[in-house]
């Protein structure tokens, strides 16, 4: 029993000192002998419960587990670092949303949805932030790059997977299906 408690402490300390989320895979490396993934998962659940009443909480995001301050404290912590990450422009957020919800997309797809040409600075900003990357080339003339969101994006938005993205506005999706667009007609127009 004491041994299990030790394991739990090791996991806790590893998670508290890591700047990156740690996956179950990472956590197994803490121990020399083989440790069951299920044991680790169970211990993580226990840790989560242990911290329930405390100032930090253990959360699971795309690339693993991490400790983060509970939302109630953000307001206070903010005062320590007033110059926090700047807000992105509306254009950048729209491009991010299109890539997040419609991935993989090409630059042309993004331009088609937004109806304006895309400033290449916008994509660069998102790539530098490691929220998007190029996952391949579309097999059409010019072989344009296909963009998709990264794990880092999910981590930063505290999401486990893309399916956890907020749902699209349902009244709008309803209107879209009501709009009865004849796909063939669109084809003819494009040609």
């Amino acid at each position: 029993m004491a041994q299990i408690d030790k394991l739990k402490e090791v996991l806790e300390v590893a998670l508290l000192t890591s700047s990156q989320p740690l996956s179950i895979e990472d956590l197994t490396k803490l121990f020399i002998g083989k440790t069951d993934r299920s044991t680790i998962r169970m211990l993580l659940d226990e840790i989560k419960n242990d911290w329930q009443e405390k100032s930090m909480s253990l959360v699971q995001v795309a690339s693993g587990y991490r400790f983060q301050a509970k939302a109630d404290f953000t307001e206070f912590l903010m005062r320590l670092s007033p110059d926090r990450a700047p807000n992105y422009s509306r254009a950048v957020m729209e491009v991010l949303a299109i890539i997040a919800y419609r991935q993989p997309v090409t630059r042309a797809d993004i331009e088609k949805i937004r109806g304006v040409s895309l400033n290449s600075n916008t994509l660069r900003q998102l790539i530098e932030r490691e929220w998007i990357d190029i996952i391949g080339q579309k097999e059409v003339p010019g072989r344009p790059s296909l963009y998709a969101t990264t794990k880092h994006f999910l981590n930063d938005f505290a999401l486990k997977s893309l399916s956890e993205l907020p749902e699209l506005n349902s009244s709008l999706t309803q209107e879209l299906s009501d709009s009865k667009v004849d796909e063939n007609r669109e084809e003819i127009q494009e040609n």
Partner: protein
Amino acid sequence: MTEFIQTEKSLPKIYGENIEALPQDLYIPPDALEIYLDSFEGPLDLLIYLIRKNNIDILDIPMANLTLQYVNYVEKMKVIKLELAADYLLMSAMLIEIKSRMLLPKPALEDDEDDPRAELVKKLIEYELMKDAAENLNQMPQVGKDIMIAQSYFERVTEIKYPDVSIDELFEAWKNVIKRVKQFEQHQISRSELSVREYMTIILRKLNEKDLLEFSTFFNSDKDPIPKLVVCFLAILELTKEGLIKINQQSSSSAIYLQLGDS
């Protein structure tokens, strides 16, 4: 832009009653839009703004009205920010095209699925969906903005490990040093005065005395220094090339004989 969406949701009241719909022909003078110049992300954004502001049913857009408002706005914009206008002008053309197609009499077979507005409406809704999603994303808690990650300090113990060295390796290293030092030794290079021409003469003289001489008699490898052997060999080749001597060998690996050439 957020403000517009909010104000649009809370409709004004008259005599305590909500106004369900604004007049269809509500006209917004372009001057009123001037201050929002930079707040539109493109023609679709502007159209959505006009549609939502006027409470138009997106599935039944009054094209004449909307086109008029849109074109007025774009005309205004052209004066102030010409470089922005290209995408907007394209949309003007598209709106007018749709309007003119609606004016054409429909062939009897066509049903209302072929509404010329359909494609525009689809685009507008798709864009509004993404615009909406972008705002939601922006309001989600983000690491570095609203989420603070635990990062306690721990002292990494960095023990310096020294590599083991055996006496053999040390000796090996010393040998390498010696070897390298040798390469920096200075050499005196002296020119040895050996002339190929001189040897050509010597060889010809010998052959004049005896018609046929074995190849190896020209080389005394025990006594002669290497440069001399080389020059001698070169002389033989040179003589052969000039046709002054002939080199014969009966069969492979038998003795090679030199004799004077025909000339």
